[in-house]
């Protein structure tokens, strides 16, 4: 490379906008298929447990509130999840999906990594059960 060409490069670079992005201020839209946090639709769930069984990293737990009334809640460990989408494939009822919007999952505490999904009434029932007299009944399928 000639010295002249080098100088041309230097001057051009002076007027170029920065190549970096102002990330927390400006966010690039995520691709459609980006695999972010898991989303659970408890109304379609039949409690077949296939997602929990196939999960390679033991991140999903389906807790039965009332099998006859098909009331289930899901406990999801974001810190264990590898975002492989096997659960989405395994679910035959389409109640699972990986969100492409919620992907900023960092946290300084451990608690936010354990998420519980389900309808409000079911969650309340679950909390009542876990804090009630028989705590060991909580995870019985």
């Amino acid at each position: 490379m000639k010295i002249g060409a080098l100088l041309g490069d230097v001057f051009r670079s002076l007027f170029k906008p920065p190549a970096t992005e102002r990330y927390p201020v400006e966010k690039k839209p995520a691709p459609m298929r980006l695999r972010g946090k898991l989303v659970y639709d408890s109304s379609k769930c039949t409690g077949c447990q296939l997602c929990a069984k196939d999960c390679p990293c033991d991140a999903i737990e389906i807790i039965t509130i009332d099998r006859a009334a098909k009331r289930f809640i899901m406990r999801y460990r974001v810190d264990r999840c590898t975002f492989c989408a096997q659960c989405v494939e395994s679910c035959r009822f389409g109640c699972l999906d990986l969100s492409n919007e919620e992907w900023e999952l960092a946290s300084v505490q451990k608690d936010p990594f354990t998420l519980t999904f389900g309808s409000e009434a079911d969650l309340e029932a679950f909390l009542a059960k876990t804090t009630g007299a028989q705590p060991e009944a909580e995870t019985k399928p």
Partner: protein
Amino acid sequence: MEKSEPKKFVVPIGPQHPALKEPGHFEFEVDGEIVTGATARFGYVHRGIEKGAETRSWIQAMYLLERVCGICSHVHATAFALGAEKLAKVTVPPRAQAIRVLVGELERLHSHMLWLGVAVHEAGFDTLFMYSWRDREIVMDLLEGLTGNRVNYSANVLGGVKIDVDDKQRDDILKGLEVLEQRAQYYLKVVTTDETFLGRTRGIGTMTYEQAELLGAVGPTGRASGVKRDVRVEAPYAAYPDFPVNLITDTRGDLEARFVVRIKELFEAIRIIREILDKMPTGEIQTKMPRRVPEGETISRVEAPRGELLYYIRSAGGDKPDRVKVRTPSLCNWGSVLTTAVGHKLADMPMILSGIDPCFSCNDRAAIIRRPDQPAQAWDWESLRLHGIEYYKR
């Protein structure tokens, strides 16, 4: 004064950060600046993946094996999936096979560009390192858009693939490939004409064809020495029978030839991706895979970016694999490093090491070398256990 025998001077390199940011230990015997002997020791990142696969279901094992290597993760999952499907006698739809090859070739692009950056960085040519890693972002973004993940894409599922290619993705990939092709032309020009850089590569680490055959060099390392071997050509798997690959070889066998072969493979990968997108088979992308795989054993071979990757899979008829043995390409190429290192300057060692595109996490597999003067040894579970206990007593 009594003259004493000159002692061997050994320069240890590693286990922390030997040329690359992965653990491996090397000892170079030197005479002044010239290396007269080399040994290597690995095993610092042994994670017990093969044993771990035996305790997981077939589906879970695929995701575990995908994590043997973070750079060529897709080929590991593909090798395992192809083997398991062969055992279960499941025929995967042609569209799924084509998508597997598509992701595999995109991965080859990203792996070769990553290697190019690392290798020129070892030569002190950081401008090209920045260029190639900047351009690698294009292919990373394509993979993210296609599969949803930037690394460990998890595109495979037993019995097919998870993702389909629609028109928008097709256009994105074609647009990205155009830029990448121009950039690859530029890299080829730089690595073959830049005088300072050629001083570090031309005639360094030369491995002849005979040496390559003797040492069992695989992949681009072997092909740079004229070894006409590529699993995609000699035993086409997945969709490679429909999309044939042109073998790229060189006869010089030095570091320059390895650069040229890998950059030419970029063009070849771009050509295959274009062909696949042009003639994508139609139809389903998944077929049903049984949870229990019938009893049997099989060998599955695929061409990883670093060379031939071999999986031995045995099923006892259950929902878990009975045995999975992985033979990774980097392991086969170390012999060539230790042999070609002799006679070169110590300062050339990082370049020779990175010239084979080593993947240290690939190396942590058990390998037993059978010497002609020693009887063959069969290791069963019990003798391995006892060996482990004895080994750690020291």
